[in-house]
């Protein structure tokens, strides 16, 4: 795949359901170079329905789906491409391996359709296709860590293995777009983390763009390049993951994402139970909860409740992070005040009104923002 060429996904969908639920999704995303778009939102928001319409498994009442220069659906011109001709393989939450086929036959199930028609008509086709699929199966099974399971039937696989085979089956067809409908949700935590990492590196190696449906914000942060926030059947915000998390358009989006600052950074050092993370020009110290290697790309997530403000230099304290900050704005949120700080990166602090009055804080004031190392949640990029 040409890395430089834009692979744009253009979606305008409208569908009214009998219960009165209205899905009205509008989305433009550039998925070049194997980028992953996360459809994020609470359960029942319509994420899966959007995915199924992109896959061609459901039709909108009105709408358009374009991928690259292909029109997959355009209701006003009665254009409809069935799922077979979209090249968008889908992976569901529960494994849907074909129970009567071995792992090998499952993985190569769709392969011969990826071979061009021209090749298929030539003679000796059968041999060549089989040969090619044998190589492809071995290759893809190794990449997904299911080599050695080829002769098993699906019922003899664990949940994690089944989902790996499912991904192998989808990737073996060399899809133009991979659609993932909460594929890790049914797995146990260690398996989930490993599989996320493997899938993301595989997608980047093969340059396969993907759309991932999830309601798990850690997963969204770990896997996503772009994120679309889906609430009540609408896509409320689309953008780069860090941008959307840091600058939600409105309170609804902020609530769906969780009120945390999400700061993209890189681990510069690990030691003594602490992870040192460079975020822009500043360095944060976070408690090391899981093993992270130096050089890893991470998000440092900080809740506004965990940020304290100091007006004079403190004595010896347990707080690891002290950042010189300028007060940008102060807003009242019920009984507490939200203080927006600029400390090289944007950070919010929630403080009581009395504290604010005692410190006589106002916009423009120079302060110190303090964050305990244990309050910084580090999410490694998968």
């Amino acid at each position, binding site marked *: 795949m040409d890395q430089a060429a834009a692979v744009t996904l253009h979606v305008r969908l409208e569908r009214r359901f009998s219960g009165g639920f209205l899905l009205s999704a509008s989305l433009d995303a550039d998925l070049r170079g194997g980028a992953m778009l996360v459809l994020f939102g609470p359960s029942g928001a319509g994420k899966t329905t959007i995915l199924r319409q992109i896959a061609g498994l459901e039709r909108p009442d009105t709408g358009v789906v374009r991928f690259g220069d292909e029109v997959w659906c355009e209701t006003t011109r009665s254009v409809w491409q069935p*799922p*077979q*001709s979209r090249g*968008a*393989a889908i992976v569901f939450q529960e494994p849907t391996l074909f*129970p009567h086929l071995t792992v090998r036959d499952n993985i190569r*199930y*769709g392969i011969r359709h990826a071979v061009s028609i021209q090749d298929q008509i030539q003679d000796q086709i059968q041999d060549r296709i089989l040969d090619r699929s044998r190589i492809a199966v071995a290759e893809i099974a190794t990449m997904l860590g299911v080599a050695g399971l080829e002769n098993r039937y699906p019922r003899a696989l664990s949940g994690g293995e089944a989902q790996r085979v499912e991904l192998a089956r989808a990737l073996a067809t060399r899809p133009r777009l991979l659609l993932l409908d909460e594929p890790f949700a049914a797995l146990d935590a260690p398996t989930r983390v490993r599989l996320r990492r493997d899938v993301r590196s595989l997608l980047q190696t093969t340059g396969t763009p993907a759309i991932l449906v999830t309601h798990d914000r850690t997963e969204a942060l770990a896997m996503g390049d772009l994120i679309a926030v889906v609430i009540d059947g609408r896509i409320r915000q689309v953008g780069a993951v860090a941008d959307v998390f840091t600058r939600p358009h409105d309170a609804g989006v902020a609530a769906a994402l969780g009120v945390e600052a999400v700061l993209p950074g890189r681990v510069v050092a690990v030691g003594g139970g602490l992870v040192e993370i460079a975020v822009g020009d500043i360095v944060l110290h976070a408690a090391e909860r899981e093993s992270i290697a130096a050089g890893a790309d991470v998000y440092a997530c900080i809740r506004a409740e965990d940020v304290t403000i100091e007006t004079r230099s403190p004595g010896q304290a347990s707080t690891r992070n002290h950042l010189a900050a300028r007060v940008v704005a102060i807003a009242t949120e019920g009984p507490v005040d939200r203080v927006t700080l600029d400390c090289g990166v944007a950070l919010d602090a929630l403080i009581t009104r009395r504290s604010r009055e005692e410190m006589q804080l106002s916009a423009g004031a120079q302060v110190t923002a303090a964050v305990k190392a244990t309050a910084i949640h580090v999410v490694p990029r998968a």
Partner: protein
Amino acid sequence: MDWTALWLSVRLASATSAALLVGGVPLAYWIVFSPRRWKYVVEAIVALPLVLPPTVLGFYVLIAIGPLSPIGRAYARVAGHGLPFTFEGLLIASMLYSLPFAVQPFSAEFAAVDRRLLEASWSLGVSRAETFRRIVLPLSVRGLVTGIVLSFAHTLGEFGVVLMVGGNLPGVTRTVSISIYDAVQSLDYALASRTSLVLLVVSFAILTAVYALQRSVWIKPRL
């Protein structure tokens, strides 16, 4: 023991089951997967032989394939003889008579295949027809076998329809159940009881096999 009649019945039942496999699978596929709203009408027509008296069904088939109908005339022109009172005519009548016994097990099994398997297959680029061949059919083996066996057994025991459409020509249309009727009419109870016993044993064996199949004695159920 009327071996001629028994052999004729077995041939008729085999031909009927084979024909219903060929014709019933597409029909069951259409009933399960067609988006048409009015397909319940077709389902009702398929189920009609379950409740219709065999004489009524036989009467309409006789009219439909007789020399007064376009179908009957067209067949007579091509074949040189009419359909009533022939093996072919009997085959057509038997297919209609046993239609629900094949199509209903087929469609029940097709409908039980997890739809997500089909969607996964489609999204992997495999056409609907090929998805049906490679996924639905292999997963529906039990339903297919059940339908074939039931329609075989049902055809073996048919009486009213045969009498209406086929008459009673030895070796051509005199099936085993008509042979039993004839034996009783001529007070040959010994012959009737021998033939009846054979039918009873065969029918019982077939039904035992079908129910064993449903309980997955031989074919493992799908996951």
